[in-house]
């Protein structure tokens, strides 16, 4: 299967820091794949995502993107932990943010905005202001904003971690439906082990200090998945054991 993005030996050291935040990271995301990075607090999950997004240059190693950016398309788009919608923009204009730098016709922009809002089931919310939305709705608009640029790869930085459990589970299911409908590749970071097992095709564990990939596995459970099955519990134990192991040797959960 063709890799959308491949990282080889990626290391990031912040200026002034004695040791890297993570080092020697190798992984790839294939076309249409749902990849999870689950890790301990401070392991640099968000930083790693920023490296993949091209927002941060690695100190060492390479990031190879199969899809190059052009004036009409972006290779990836990010969904943040907090939606961070621009409060002075309506929902429609927030979704349009990523399209404004692209050389697209007005009709094409409107089609993409309408499609993205339809995917997150908020078509009728276009004229609302962000402060008129619930936390879950804001996060869905954050997702629509990323979907509107029609990226090959969606980068998701703990997008549901600030939501209550019921909304979180509903949005996880909604994300899986969108993923199935669009065929996008997704790189999703989380500290939530159950979320990692429920969503991912492949799971990488990031832990230790400096952080590294301490384990990875394919989750071959059939979809739609059930939560809390014996297989899921076994995988959760494997993740806990691996991350606890590195924690005992200098990591930090």
């Amino acid at each position, binding site marked *: 299967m063709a890799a959308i993005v491949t990282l080889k030996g990626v290391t990031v050291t912040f200026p002034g820091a004695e040791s890297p935040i993570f080092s020697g990271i190798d992984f790839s995301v294939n076309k249409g794949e749902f990849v999870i990075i689950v890790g301990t607090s401070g392991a640099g999950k968000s930083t790693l995502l920023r490296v993949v997004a091209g*927002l941060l240059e690695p100190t060492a190693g390479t990031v190879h993107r199969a899809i190059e950016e052009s004036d009409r398309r*972006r290779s990836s788009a990010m969904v*943040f932990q*907090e939606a961070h919608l*621009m409060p*002075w923009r309506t929902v429609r204009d927030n979704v349009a943010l990523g399209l404004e730098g692209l050389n697209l016709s007005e009709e094409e922009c409107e089609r993409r905005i309408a499609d993205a809002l339809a995917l997150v089931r908020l078509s009728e919310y276009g004229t609302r202001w962000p*402060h008129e939305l619930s936390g879950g709705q804001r996060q869905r608009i954050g997702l629509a904003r990323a979907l509107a640029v029609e990226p090959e790869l969606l980068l998701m930085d703990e997008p549901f971690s600030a939501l209550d459990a019921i909304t979180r589970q509903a949005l996880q299911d909604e994300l899986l439906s969108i993923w199935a409908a669009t065929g996008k590749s997704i790189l999703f970071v989380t500290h939530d082990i159950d979320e990692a097992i429920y969503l991912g095709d492949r799971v990488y564990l990031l832990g230790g200090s400096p952080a590294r990939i301490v384990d990875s596995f394919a989750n071959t459970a059939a979809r739609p998945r059930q939560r809390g099955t014996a297989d899921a519990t076994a995988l959760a134990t494997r993740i806990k054991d691996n991350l606890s192991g590195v924690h005992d040797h200098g990591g930090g959960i």
Partner: protein
Amino acid sequence: MRRHLYGLAGLIVFLLAWELLVASGLVVSSLLSPPSSIPATLASEISLGFWQKMILASLTHYSVGLLLGSTLGVVAGVSVALFPRFDAAQAWVARVLRPIPPLAWIPFAIIWFGISETAAAFIISIGIFWINYFTAHAAVRAVNPDLIEVAVSFGHKSLFRRLQKVILPASAPGILSGIRAGLGQGWMTVVAAELFGITGIGQRMMEAAGLLATQVVIVYMLTIALLYGLSDIAFVTIQNRVLRWQR
């Protein structure tokens, strides 16, 4: 509604007390004209053409000073907030110049521009500049860096794009409140700036005061209050429209 009624009642009591103070002889009418003399004086000033002429003259250098002070203040405040080195370089200069009151610049205004409208506009602009400078600086520094990161991640990487997409809209509430404060500061300075002989409301007030025509002085005091009130209402209307996204 009840609040407005109280306000109206307070105003009537104030005017009555003022009228009684003069009518009872406690204050000599040549030192303070009663409110009842104001309508006739205003009518006279209008019919002689002074009122319109003075307002137009004051409005002219007020507007120039406001435009100049606000524009330069906002541009300087935003620029300094964007570039930390520029910020550090200007910090002491700003600390030295900021406490100097606009009126202390009158000698230089006369030396540089003579007794002219330009001199008055210059003095008015100084006070307005500093208000806008500091509010714009603080507003830009307070912009949520996460919003900037979102814009950058969606391709708006250049400084111009970041300004256009995030920094200016996010700091607009602060910048606009600075411009509004400058509107008021400008009217406070306009009279003082005209005291040294530049045509306008301040000059007319000084002429009237010299003749103990306190009713004329009061007419122009109330005129300033009216002009400030009208400009403030107009600005708030625009501000509310621009910031309609706020709760």
